[in-house]
């Protein structure tokens, strides 16, 4: 198994429970692993939460981490996927002074070319939203950063996978 580090997306299906975030993050902390991004949301199943965690590590270690995550009482199942088998998006928000739209006309081109969306505009500032792969959001940031960006923030990844994750079947067997 590969010892080389690469980006993996870990999907953890859990009972929605106070304290579970702490329990799961402690597993990464113990092994001194830096989590690239983390998102918690409802899943396709009612009452089941989904953690989407992006980490940069070897496959050998990600397997061990999965085992230790699944061991937690309130975790239903955990999966890991490499980049090839993950379909993901992240989102970036940019707050920029409105007057720059007139002073620096190329900004308008940048917005058009990048498929970014204007969320809101007022006299003082406008807010730009860009969803896509991390590289796309970063590329937009790099283009805009030559101008003055008032605020910039980027979300963690939300992801679905090419493979099936059979949580419903699993829950059925647990319920029986």
């Amino acid at each position, binding site marked *: 198994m590969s010892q080389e580090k690469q980006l993996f997306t870990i999907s953890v299906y*859990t*009972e929605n429970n*106070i*304290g579970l975030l*702490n*329990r799961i993050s*402690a597993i990464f902390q*113990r092994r001194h692993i830096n989590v690239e991004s983390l998102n918690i949301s409802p899943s396709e199943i009612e009452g089941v939460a989904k953690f989407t965690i992006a980490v940069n590590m070897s496959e050998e270690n990600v*397997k*061990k981490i999965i*085992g*230790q995550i*699944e*061991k937690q*009482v*309130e*975790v*239903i199942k955990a999966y890991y996927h490499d980049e090839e088998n993950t379909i993901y998006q992240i989102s970036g928000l940019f707050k920029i002074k409105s007057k720059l739209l007139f002073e620096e006309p190329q900004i308008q081109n940048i917005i058009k070319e990048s498929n970014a969306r204007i969320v809101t505009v007022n006299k003082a500032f406008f807010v730009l939203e860009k969803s896509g792969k991390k590289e796309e959001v970063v590329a937009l940031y790099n283009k805009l950063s030559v101008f003055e960006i008032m605020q910039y923030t980027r979300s963690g990844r939300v992801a679905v996978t090419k493979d099936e994750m059979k949580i419903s079947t699993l*829950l059925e067997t*647990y*319920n029986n």
Partner: protein
Amino acid sequence: METQTIQKKEIATKVTERISGSEAIVRCLIAEDIQIIYGYPGGAIMPVYDELYKYQDKIHHVLTRHEQGATHAAQGFARISGQVGVAIATSGPGATNLITGIADAQIDSTPMVCITGQVASHLLGSDAFQETDIVGISTPVTKWNCQITKASEIPEALAKAFYIAKSGRPGPVLVDITKDAQFEEFDFSYEKCIKVRSYVPVPKTVAGTLEAAAKMINAAKKPLIIWGQGVILSEAEEAFKAFVEKAGIPAAWTILGASALKTSHPLNVGMLGMHGNYAPNKLTNECDVLIAIGMRFDDRVTGDLSNYAKQAKVIHFEIDPAEVDKNVKTDVAVLGDAKASLKAILPLINANSHTEWHQQFKDLYAIEYEKVIKGDLHPTKEGLTMGEVIKEINIQSKGDAAIVTDVGQHQMIACRYADFNKTKSNITSGGLGTMGFGLPAAIGAKMAAPEREVVSISGDGGYQMTIQELGTIFQQKAAVKVVVLNNDFLGMVRQWQQLFFDKRYASTEMVNPNFVKIAEGYYIKAKKVTKREELADAVKEMMESKEAYFLEVCVEKEGNVFPMVPSGASVSDIRLE
């Protein structure tokens, strides 16, 4: 008749009664058949203590002298009985004092339920008096934990706690209950937990793995079994013995696996690991099939992983899927409960004797005997050895005593040389290596199994970490036999300083008090032995005592424990001197 009782029971559990949260806690314990609990009162847990006062004919509360002692006593209770140990404490410092015992129980898979009081729910997060985030603090060292702020949540949470603590790979759980939830009244009913949706205590054995393992075992020329506490936790001792005997395979144990198979059994080839026996360590790197049963390839067992059993095919019988391939890559993993798996594999195994292979173990034992064991057990030079004290205890107990050890040189010597006839007889802190574990754990063990002889063996260092529990022994009239092997040093650290730090004995020399006087201060019979000719009689007197007894044995100051696999070295590089 039988149906009648079942019906009655069902009715009894379904009827609700209006009681307080604190009374509910005690009633839950009674429903779980808990008769002894260990703890220490304080502000946020006082309503529960008030109920314990009311129910004292049903539950015996043991007041320890420190909350850490309560957890170790609960662990000792659990380890000798196989039942869940219970510890209880107040919020803040009471709760944080439990942590060492909880961490110890987590790494040694000991079933334990800890109940802590918490400040009232409206004060949570406000830095109230004796408030601490014990759920946050205990998260990494518990199998499960939760905080309860409503009385109505208590029965379900405690039912879940007991189920999780005991099922699958056991472990400690903590339930933190706010003081207002303890006071609040609600309609109580209790139902035992038999399932948690997201939790699989025992994984299914993957089809074909038993057959694949059997095939590998049957084809092996030089197989070696290494077993751990999993055999004891799944009560697989009989099935394990049948398997070992039919297959005729030499079997070695991890420190927590000790006593699952009699010490004197001809196929028992001794202890694995850093201070284990010479033969099983050396031959781990010569076997062709390594059969691991209910053990987790701890670094103290394996030494350098890159030079560990690389020539062997590895079979791992394991209940916790996270342990498979964690440290050692396996060829066949047999997931599931050890008892069930061993019973299932028995008919697939060919009877064998492996006579030549056994001879290799005997030959290496002969070397170890000459170089190490003879000098430990039958010393001719001046100065008592720890080994000869264990030997005398063996003679007096005939191998039937439960040996509870602390951590350090005495622990390694006791585990190496103690005779174990019965299972669940070796109670020690393995994974965490908690000094101070021994004395309180022995109290818990003695109270769980009063019919058994329980001998606590500590060094002069660890003994003083929980020495105050002598008070518990005295108050409870627990007939624990307490042995301190005194070398006036933190012996194991000193040994490392001698071997690896050019004898720079930094802070390892102990200037000790009069231990006999301290024991006598607690009204415990006490004796001190300094000469070989006094030893046998003193041990005899201690073992014959009907009540608690303290025996200090002054042993040679700079004795070392061998064999030894130096830290980071391969098991092949085990040193005899």
